[in-house]
């Protein structure tokens, strides 16, 4: 260990040494260290490389404002996290960190050539060049720029960690656990009610952690917090966003501060906190000073030097120079001196400084240079000295030192305040914006509210210097390499809004989001524009306050919990019988049941043939179902659906077609009248919720006079479709209380009875064109009944089939699937469903829109069938249809193929399509141009099998 660790002091535990590595080099620190403090203690000054010029960079701040010291932490396979701020990485035994954005090494980075040619790359340079030759942007310039940009490397493997997310509610939420925050917490707690105090650091105390004088008081306050029964304290928790109505997002780091072997449970937790009142005690962040050489490693904020010395027992250098524009720098210098750090000099740009400070400095043996400014910093990877001059322009004085502390004044953290749209007020004294009037029930306290006496200062744009600002390496945004001269250039080029200046220079757009650069940028812009800061505006503060892990925001919503999979009561049976599944809206449905080595085509041909030959069984449980009950039920359905419902007799079913009010088909389904005042509706699988919502909308808001109740029963019923000429034979032994005879129980009828001893609503309906039943039984009995039917069907050659076979069979009959054959732009007439529209009904949803001028014009697409000339040519679903395949591009298209299958029954392919004036083209040849060939097909009616319906009515 080198000699930067002070002999005593700090809050570290010197009895617990911790070994860690940085860029492969082994180091030692102590429990209580951060990665940054342990590295500084080990004599490390070079932490990283800047974004654009790849300049060597050191530590600037000791908190969330840190722009330079970004590291990648490696916690084992697939646990790589880039871009972490070294001062906020808690040290643990075995910590492995590495620097970023350099190649081949941190000390020798080839890309630092950018810095040599930095004059070529001022703000906005990329707008001005890389335009010739045209193709070179994508082939050459952009790839090179991308490779040089970026910071650390993204993880490349699936993250083994998991994340938690939860809610909290409280009367008062206090954000920030410094003295002001703790005090506010105790005050709130005294009024009773739940109080939550959160702080981003690993212990409470905020700025007081760097002030041993306050430690005793801090301990006393912490004891009071612990004693209060109604206070919850959460450390390592960052409030990152303030949303509507006192809703605060915060993330809690749970394991990253522990050695990987000691970590268990979720890595982070998202807290969504609803608070009656919010107290913001976020403190203030020190501002750097802008001067030539202010980015040499070893130049940092005075507050960081103080934090290192007094919280971590680390000297930032052996000879420290303080460059101050504010009293706080003097106090920090005195504190450092008191802790045993050699402070060589205080340079202050002000001409007058309080006598108390000057006297104290002289008493501490610190040289004092009033009215002076640093004009150069010497050293490349570490500070070796500074040149300063009176007013920056006087005779140059050189001073050897190995650290420079900047004290440019303080910027209250108004981030969350601004998220909540609270107003801001410019304060000349602070040289910063302070919280004004809140919108939410919220107040700011402590330094963040400007209620903190840390002395006086002057606000400077750039320190005075004899060197033209254009020739200075005076940085405003360290990470993004924005110099003072870039802001001048932006203004020179006509950028007058601070938003333009920000975007043109990228000032404030780095991963620290301008915590150290925004106010200095404003001051420089103000000077360049010759307008007061308040007239230049302020860029908007946007969540998050500090970068937040995607995983924490994802929470539990991953894999199966991303969206719960809806499964039918028959799902497990299907799994056991080898089903291949497909996702249909949020359901998973058995698509086909392959046997042996069958592919989908073979399985589906077999399943189709079996249904037409004997009998097939199909799980239709996912169909949406709505129970419509009440004296006005028939009237209600009559208004909703296109067709008439009032005349439907109990015990009978009807196909219902539902339009949106704009006249386009949105859903369909077969529904049954169970009694005068009761209907059992079915909807498409994907449309259930939408249809129920739409019906509730009309019922509640337009026709509240109707006495009707709607209940979703989708998940109450298992639906077993049994289809095929042997269907009746299969269920006959199982059914009681229902006469299954063809006359007693005709097609499109419903009966109630029992099947396998289970109460059923038995529908005689068919989506296949065969004799068929849909057996509705309570979902809890679904699998039992399914298995009994399956067993009973064995003697009849029963075959389980899936959605693909269902699609083929219905296509052979020309039955549409809403959403596949229709697309939200099709009317009943387009689909040949005129028969389903009640011509005599004065009104139904969508009727008026069907009378709009364009809805009756020729040229609308109409639903038809297609038979390819080569019966084995299978059209592709989605393929476009043309009348003239030799037409030049863009080729006029008349429609497209909506459904296309191999039909076992026909021994050939069939297709359904919508084409312009399709019904008038029946018998004509159309063309489907595919890459490399044109397929000819004949337009037919959309009906390929048993047009007279004799099988259906058997």
């Amino acid at each position, binding site marked *: 260990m080198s000699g930067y660790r002070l002999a005593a002091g700090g809050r570290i535990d010197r009895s617990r040494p911790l070994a860690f590595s940085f860029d492969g080099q082994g180091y030692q620190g102590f429990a209580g260290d951060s990665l940054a403090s342990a590295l500084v203690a080990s004599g490390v000054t070079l932490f990283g490389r800047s974004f654009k010029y790849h300049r060597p960079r050191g530590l600037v701040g000791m908190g969330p404002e840190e722009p330079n010291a970004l590291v990648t932490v490696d916690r084992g396979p697939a646990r790589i996290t880039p871009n972490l701020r070294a001062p906020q990485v808690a040290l643990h035994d075995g910590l492995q960190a590495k620097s970023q954005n350099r190649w081949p090494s941190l000390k020798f980075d080839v890309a630092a050539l950018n810095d040599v040619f930095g004059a070529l790359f001022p703000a906005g340079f990329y707008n001005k060049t890389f335009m010739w030759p045209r193709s070179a942007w994508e082939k050459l310039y952009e790839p090179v720029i991308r490779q040089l940009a970026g910071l650390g490397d993204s993880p490349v493997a699936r993250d083994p960690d998991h994340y938690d997310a939860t809610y909290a509610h409280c009367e008062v939420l206090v954000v920030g656990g410094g003295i002001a925050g703790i005090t506010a917490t105790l005050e709130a707690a005294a009024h009773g009610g739940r109080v939550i105090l959160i702080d981003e650091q690993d212990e409470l105390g905020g700025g007081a952690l760097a002030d041993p004088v306050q430690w005793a008081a801090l301990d006393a306050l912490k004891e009071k917090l612990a004693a209060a029964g109604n206070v919850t304290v959460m450390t390592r928790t960052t409030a990152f966003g303030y*949303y*509507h*109505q006192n*809703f605060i997002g915060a993330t809690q780091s749970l394991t990253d501060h522990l050695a990987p072997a000691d970590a268990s449970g979720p890595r982070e937790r998202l807290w*969504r906190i*609803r608070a009656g009142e919010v107290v913001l005690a976020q403190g203030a962040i020190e501002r750097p000073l802008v001067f030539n050489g202010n980015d040499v490693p070893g130049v940092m904020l005075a507050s960081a030097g103080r934090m290192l010395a007094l919280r971590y027992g680390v000297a930032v250098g052996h000879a420290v120079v303080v460059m101050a524009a504010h009293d706080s720098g003097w106090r920090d210098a005195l504190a450092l001196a008191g802790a045993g750090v050699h402070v060589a000099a205080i340079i202050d740009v002000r001409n007058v400084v309080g006598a108390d400070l000057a006297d104290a400095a002289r008493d501490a043996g610190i040289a004092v240079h009033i009215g002076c400014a640093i004009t150069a910093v010497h050293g490349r990877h570490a500070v070796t000295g500074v040149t300063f001059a009176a007013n920056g322009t006087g005779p140059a004085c050189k001073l050897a030192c190995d650290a420079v502390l900047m004290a440019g004044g303080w910027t209250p953290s108004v981030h969350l305040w601004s998220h909540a*749209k609270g107003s801001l007020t410019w304060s000349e004294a602070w040289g910063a914006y302070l919280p004004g009037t809140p*919108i939410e029930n919220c107040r700011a306290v402590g330094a963040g509210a400007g209620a903190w006496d840390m002395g006086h200062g002057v606000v400077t744009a750039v320190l005075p210097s004899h060197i033209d600002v254009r020739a200075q390496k005076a940085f405003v945004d360290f990470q993004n390499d924005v110099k003072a001269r870039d802001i001048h250039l932006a203004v020179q080029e006509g950028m007058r809004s601070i938003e333009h200046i920000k975007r043109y220079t990228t000032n404030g757009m780095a991963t620290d989001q301008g915590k150290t650069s925004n106010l200095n940028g404003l001051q420089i812009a103000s000077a360049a524009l010759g307008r007061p800061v308040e007239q230049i505006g302020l860029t908007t503060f946007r969540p998050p306050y500090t970068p937040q892990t995607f995983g924490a925001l994802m929470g539990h919503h991953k894999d199966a919990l991303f969206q719960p999979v809806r499964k039918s009561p028959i799902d497990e049976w299907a799994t056991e019988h080898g089903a291949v599944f497909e996702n249909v809206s949020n359901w998973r449905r058995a698509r086909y049941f392959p046997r042996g080595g069958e592919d989908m085509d073979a399985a589906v041909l077999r399943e189709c043939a079996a249904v037409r030959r004997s009998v097939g069984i199909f799980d239709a449980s996912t169909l949406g179902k709505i129970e419509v009950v009440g004296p006005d039920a028939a009237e209600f359905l009559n208004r909703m659906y296109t067709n008439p419902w009032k005349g439907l007799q109990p015990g009978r079913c009807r196909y219902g077609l539902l339009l949106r*009010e*704009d006249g386009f088909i949105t859903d369909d389904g077969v529904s049954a009248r169970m009694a005068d005042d009761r209907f059992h509706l079915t909807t498409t699988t994907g449309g259930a919720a939408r249809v129920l*919502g739409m019906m*509730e*909308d*009309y019922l*509640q*808001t*337009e026709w*509240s006079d109707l006495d009707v109740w709607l209940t979703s029963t989708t998940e109450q019923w298992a639906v077993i479709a049994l289809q095929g000429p042997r269907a009746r034979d299969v269920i006959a032994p199982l059914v009681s209380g229902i006469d299954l005879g063809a006359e007693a129980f005709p097609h499109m009828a419903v009966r109630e009875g029992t099947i396998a001893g289970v109460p059923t609503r038995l529908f005689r309906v068919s989506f296949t064109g065969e004799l068929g039943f849909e057996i509705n039984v309570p979902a809890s009995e679904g699998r039992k009944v399914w298995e009994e039917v399956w067993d009973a069907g064995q003697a009849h050659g029963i075959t389980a089939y899936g959605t693909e076979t269902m699609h083929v069979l219905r296509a052979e009959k020309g039955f549409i699937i809403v959403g596949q054959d229709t697309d939200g732009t099709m009317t009943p007439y387009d689909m040949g469903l005129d028969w389903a529209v009640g011509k005599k009904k*004065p*009104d139904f949803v969508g*009727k*008026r*829109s069907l*009378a*709009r*001028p364009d809805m009756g014009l020729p040229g609308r697409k109409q639903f038809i069938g297609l038979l390819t000339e080569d019966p084995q040519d299978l059209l592709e679903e989605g393929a476009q249809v043309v009348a003239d395949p030799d037409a030049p591009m863009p080729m006029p298209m008349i429609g497209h193929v909506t459904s296309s299958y191999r039909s076992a029954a026909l021994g050939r392919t069939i297709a359904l399509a919508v084409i312009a004036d399709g019904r008038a083209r029946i018998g004509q040849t159309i063309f489907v141009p595919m890459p490399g060939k044109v397929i000819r097909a004949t337009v037919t009616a959309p009906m390929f099998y048993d047009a007279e319906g004799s099988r259906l009515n058997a």
Partner: protein
Amino acid sequence: MILIHCPYCEEDRPEVEFTYGGEAHIARPLDPGALDDRQWETYLYIRRNPRGAHAERWRHAHGCARFFNAVRDTVTDRFEVTYKTGEPRPAGDTK
């Protein structure tokens, strides 16, 4: 996450329990067939879309499932009042 006061449940509940239903007080014409195309277009599509107080429909989908109306400021997203379906829009906020 806005809190919304459901006038039926008489509770403030988080936004995710609700679905938005568009502008309120656009009654479906009793006899749509009597409207000309321009009037029907207005009913279907024309919306005030104001910057400021907006009367709008919400449904407490994951609660009581009732539709209700609200006046909300579209600039601050703050709800001024919620009220039951069928009740007139409260006076005094017609900006």
